[in-house]
């Protein structure tokens, strides 16, 4: 036994251990989600629904009210003030949903006129969404680009950029710190963001114990779903837990047995695909919404309009980021983290427990990413949210300087502001491209990033 353990510590981690790690993770993911989705399938009422929205000239998506949608032989629905509609259907199968273009408000048209009917496949017990693409103005091609630069619009876009930047910073810091301490570019980091969003949704909908299917009938906070604030906290905890497990059972073992960083990077890609499709398998492909605060009205603060939930989330993320900064700057552990990121060998030889530091970095980074995911989820919850944001996360960390915590923060704010303000002059659909262009420019002229030190990185 003793002999065995020594051999293991020297780094021979076998196929079986590794498989056990993967299986353990898969089981955790499956059991959290699988049972729940089974639960929802049992309820037996399926429907087709959605939200009708259109982009106004400021590039915001606003609900469209009073439009009639119908399914022949099943019923019809008129969109409410949030643009939401839903038609229950009697059985699983394929249905044709028809939008009555005559009921569309003045100036709003279908993006393509032949798409007034959509074929939708519904599974038993699922709410399936059907998306009708609308545009304002004629054709909509030029309608939402430009739109004039007014002080009011600049202020509004700055606020939105700040919001996106703050959330993005939470999602990015972990990636940067993990890179700093281990040298690994974790392509699955975006899935940690989605994980936070989805677990928050599940705690919000099914409650503390309801996540484990058969306990769902319990009352109160256990069975019926907890308040969003508590759910987000729980989501953050499950994010940290997943981060810890990933490090403990996958990456620590690979570091020990000397798997090269590039091989690890490709493995994170495989992990990202595995997790993403586990998500969609259990969560479904359509968007869903948190139970609390979903139809909130925006309030005006001078020239700016934001929903109270976003204001609160912005304040919380600002505080969280300050706390993270303070911890990094002043506590022993924070100093140890920065030391490991700076020079791992030197840190190890001065007595820092590098494995423990890395473990904490994974945990904290994943927890922050999860919280960021919950905040992004205030708009809508979707299985591939993280992946669609990966580009922005990468742009943020590269911009700020790979491996620096403060750099990710600065980079995320710059990216958030840049892409939102860019809609003053370019089409909203293209705003994410700005992030890439900024990133390429930075790589050309200051490859170490805004806050990185100019050492040779070629």
């Amino acid at each position: 036994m003793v002999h065995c353990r020594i051999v293991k510590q020297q780094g021979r981690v076998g196929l079986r251990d590794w498989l056990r790690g993967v299986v353990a993770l898969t089981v955790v993911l499956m059991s959290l989600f699988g049972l729940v989705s089974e639960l929802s399938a049992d309820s037996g009422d399926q429907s087709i629904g959605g939200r009708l929205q259109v982009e106004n000239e400021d590039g915001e998506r606003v609900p469209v009210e009073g439009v009639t949608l119908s399914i022949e032989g099943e019923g019809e629905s008129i969109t409410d003030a949030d643009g939401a509609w839903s038609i229950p259907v009697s059985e699983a199968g394929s249905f044709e949903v028809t939008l009555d273009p005559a009921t569309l408000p003045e100036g709003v048209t279908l993006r393509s006129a032949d798409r007034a009917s959509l074929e939708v496949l519904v599974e038993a017990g699922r709410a399936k969404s059907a998306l009708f693409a609308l545009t304002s103005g004629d054709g909509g091609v030029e309608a939402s680009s430009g739109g004039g630069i007014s002080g009011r619009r600049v202020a509004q876009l700055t606020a939105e950029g700040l919001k996106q930047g703050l959330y993005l910073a939470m999602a990015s810091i972990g990636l940067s710190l993990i890179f700093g301490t281990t040298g690994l570019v974790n392509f699955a980091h975006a899935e940690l963001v989605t994980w936070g969003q989805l677990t928050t949704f599940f705690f919000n909908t099914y409650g503390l114990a309801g996540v484990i299917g058969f306990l769902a009938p319990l009352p109160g906070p256990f069975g019926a779903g907890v308040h969003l604030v508590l759910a987000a906290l729980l989501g953050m905890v499950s994010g940290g837990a997943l981060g810890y497990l990933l490090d403990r059972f996958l990456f620590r073992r690979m570091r020990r047995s000397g798997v090269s960083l590039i091989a690890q990077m490709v493995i994170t890609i495989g992990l990202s695909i595995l997790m993403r499709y586990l998500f969609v398998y259990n969560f479904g492909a359509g968007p869903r919404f948190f139970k609390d605060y979903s139809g909130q009205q925006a309030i005006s603060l001078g020239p700016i309009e934001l929903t109270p939930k976003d204001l609160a989330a912005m304040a919380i993320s600002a505080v969280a980021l300050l706390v993270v900064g303070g911890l990094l700057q002043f506590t022993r552990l924070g100093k140890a983290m920065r030391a490991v990121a700076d020079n791992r060998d030197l840190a190890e030889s001065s007595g820092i427990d590098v494995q423990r530091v890395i473990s904490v970095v994974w945990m904290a980074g994943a927890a922050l990413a999860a919280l960021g995911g919950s905040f992004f989820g205030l708009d809508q919850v979707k299985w591939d949210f993280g992946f669609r944001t990966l580009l922005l996360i990468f742009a943020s960390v590269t911009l700020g300087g790979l491996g620096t915590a403060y750099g990710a923060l600065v980079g995320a704010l710059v990216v958030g502001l840049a892409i939102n303000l860019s809609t003053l002059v370019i089409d909203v659909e293209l705003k994410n491209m700005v992030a890439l262009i900024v990133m390429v420019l930075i790589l050309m002229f200051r490859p170490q990033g805004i806050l990185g030190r100019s050492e040779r990185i070629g």
Partner: protein
Amino acid sequence: MIGAIDWGIIVSQTFSQAFGTQAVVFALAAIGLNIHFGYTGLLNFGQVGFMAAGAYGIGMAVFWLDIGFWPGILLGIGYCLILALLLGIPTLRLRADYLGITTIAASETIRLLVRWRGNRGRTGAAEGINDFADPFYALNIFNRPGNRSYKFLFFEYRADDLWVMLTGWTVVGLCLLLTWQLMRSPWGRVLKAIREDEDAARALGKNAYSYKLQALLIGGVIGGIAGMFQAIDKQSVQPDTFNPVITFMIWTVLIIGGVARIWSPVIGAMIFWGLISGLEALMRELLGTSIEDELERFINLSVFNVSQVKFMLFGLALMLLMRFRPQGIFGSREELALDDR
């Protein structure tokens, strides 16, 4: 209980797809990636971007410029060269992972750009471009009225598919020949030297940056040709078919066959598509039997999400392969460009 499974369909699917049009596309894309990653050590996570460049070259030539199908091939190659220069010039002086991040971002940006509604007149935006490959199919030597199927042994192909396969595998052969000749030339030896130790190659007076850029250009064009065959095979180009998951499938194909081996892309593509199609056929057959209800009840599997299971298995396979046999079936560990630079 499982007696109702038709094994004939599964076997037929496996073998047909192993040599089919998708295997052609992925073999070509992987040949390009092999030049990038296998021989030069470039971490290209955006190969699908090159495929999109090639495919849209043809599509836009017919749809927008109206210059016809054949000049579109040149346009596609031109797009690939431009893309390679745009990607390579800022990032090839930097550490490998910067190229990785930039290429994946670039491939997503291309997707966003072509599906932008402002490009409706040029790229067809989200709906894409259809029916542009008639001149190609007009030359079909297998053509029979009604595009009927050919059947032999386990294989079954439509006449159009056979024509794509014949031309496709011929191009694959030519690209393999090109790679083989290039890699045994002095030029190829410099590439491998750069992969092994860039500083040493530089110390010997080789302009590593220029060599890497040339490799990126050549591999990118071959990736573009893969995209053209994808477009021809589907008779359509659509932005969302060029998503990053395709890039990672190409990586898996390359790793299965073995990195830095001439034949590995072909063998990898055959195994990958054979396995994936066989597995999907097996799951669909299982869903047709009496255990369908049990599958639905216990693991929530139905005809709607079979393909998601396919992707999960694919992600898991990529992880396991990279962990335990990164050299693939035929590769050798010595040839792996996996040291940390």
